[in-house]
């Protein structure tokens, strides 16, 4: 059962099969963009048999509204994609110059290709070599990509919290900025922020990364501790060891190095560490942070050692990280009281 042009049928790669191309052109109009999903208020309510007539009536109303909406609403949005080099692929189709990425579709680049996504009015995302992204959502105020592997660079002008990138080991929420996000095949990643802030979150574990700083993420542990890129190499390596290496001696020595070498500017690293180190280590981190940025009067040692959220928030305010009001409206920068690593 040997067939010609196996690869074109498999993933659209060259050489093209004329019959398959003809079928693609004929059948592509049957494709449909995902309409907004309408879910019931709660799954349990959906099961309440006693309310079946009411549910049926409501469903009829929803259906009617849906029909009206579908006749009036414009086509579901897709993002414009331009090739910057080579032939990036949207799904199984290679694009020579431009294409459109719809919700649920995948944009893939190889070693020869790069692409740029124009996200309506909120910004641009450059897709580097050997990268795969999927468009998960695009509607007013909600723009979401998944970065499965590779590297993207985002330049976003939307209000904080509107542009989100999922990776296998963390979710990056734009707080008005420019940043680069890289994901390896094993799900580990690196976020580097050039302008503004990015929130990096996974499974309730959060990091807030300012301009000039980077943050690693691990497939199992989630986002690590932010550290400035101009910190010395040993300091940066020590942060990674504390985040992702649980072997006793190395980790203890790494934490000691961080506490000794941290600059005033590295207070953001120490602040995140408060909630990430073991309880027995927290007092040393408190002392190190207090030596760089004295805690406000209401912030006592006891409150911080107990990871009192109010106290941690007040101390954050004293770090001198600029006007944070814009992103505080989106979410408060509290370290999650997670299990120490």
């Amino acid at each position: 059962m040997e067939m010609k042009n196996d690869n074109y049928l498999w993933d659209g790669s060259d050489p093209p099969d004329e019959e398959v191309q003809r079928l693609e052109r004929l059948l592509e109009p049957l494709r449909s963009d995902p309409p907004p999903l309408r879910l019931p208020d709660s799954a349990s309510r959906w099961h309440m048999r006693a309310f079946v007539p009411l549910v049926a009536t409501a469903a009829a109303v929803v259906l009617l509204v849906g029909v009206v909406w579908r006749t009036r609403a414009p086509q579901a949005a897709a993002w414009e994609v331009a090739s910057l080099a080579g032939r990036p692929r949207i799904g199984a189709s290679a694009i020579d110059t431009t294409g459109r990425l719809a919700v649920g579709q995948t944009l893939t680049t190889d070693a020869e290709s790069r692409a740029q996504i124009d996200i309506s009015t909120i910004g641009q995302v450059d897709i580097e070599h050997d990268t795969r992204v999927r468009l998960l959502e695009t509607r007013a105020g909600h723009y979401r990509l998944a970065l499965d592997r590779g590297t993207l660079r985002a330049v976003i002008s939307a209000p904080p919290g509107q542009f989100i990138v999922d990776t296998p080991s963390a979710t990056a929420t734009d707080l008005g900025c420019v940043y680069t996000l890289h994901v390896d095949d094993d799900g580990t990643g690196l976020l580097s922020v050039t302008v503004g802030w990015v929130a990096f979150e996974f499974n309730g574990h959060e990091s807030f990364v300012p301009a000039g700083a980077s943050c690693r993420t691990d497939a199992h542990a989630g986002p690590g501790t932010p550290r400035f890129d101009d910190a010395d190499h040993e300091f940066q390596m020590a942060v990674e060891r504390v985040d992702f290496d649980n072997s006793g001696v190395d980790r203890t020595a790494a934490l000691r190095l961080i506490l000794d070498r941290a600059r005033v500017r590295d207070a953001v690293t120490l602040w995140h560490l408060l909630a990430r180190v073991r309880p027995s280590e927290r007092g040393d981190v408190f002392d190190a942070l207090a030596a760089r940025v004295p805690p406000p009067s209401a912030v006592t040692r006891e409150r911080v050692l107990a990871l009192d959220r109010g106290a941690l928030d007040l101390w954050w305010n004293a770090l001198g990280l600029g006007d944070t009001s814009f992103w505080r409206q989106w979410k408060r920068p509290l370290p999650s009281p997670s299990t120490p690593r």
Partner: protein
Amino acid sequence: MDHALELHSVLSALTPRDLPRLHLTIRAAAGGDRDAFARLYADYFRMVHAILLGRVPRRDVDDLVQDVFLTVFTRLKSLREPAAFGGWLATIARNRATDHLRQTREQVELPKDMPGGDSIDADTFAVLDIVRQLPDAYRETLLMRLVEGMSGAEIAERTGLTPGSVRVNLHRGMTLLREKLEWK
């Protein structure tokens, strides 16, 4: 034994990187996280759309896709093995199509898909009609590839089939389709 083989093929189709993420997304969606469920919807819409398009009139497909995902939303807690999500969802879609056809036959015999009422060419429906005559496995895989624009790897990732199975389905299905089309 069949079940064990099926589960093995599902697990082998997912990369180690995908599994934890899918597991967490499904667990969050089962717990009522609507954002997580929206991600599943975005990721699996095309697979469900293709399965339904291969079975029911096109005008009914979008509404049935909604039905399928509503069913999944209410039953997700019962899914014990997150890695089996794609196959489980596909089964729900096939069952929903079967129920729909049974209900519509009991009411009134509906005409087949016909051009008119939208801008789709008559040739498109003619080809769709031929694809619908193919065996299930070939029909679904070809519609995911030719209609939805999914690559073979994406089809494997979504359906839980091994890449090898998808490749075979594509090739054998395409061979049958060429024979039926008799294009010169």
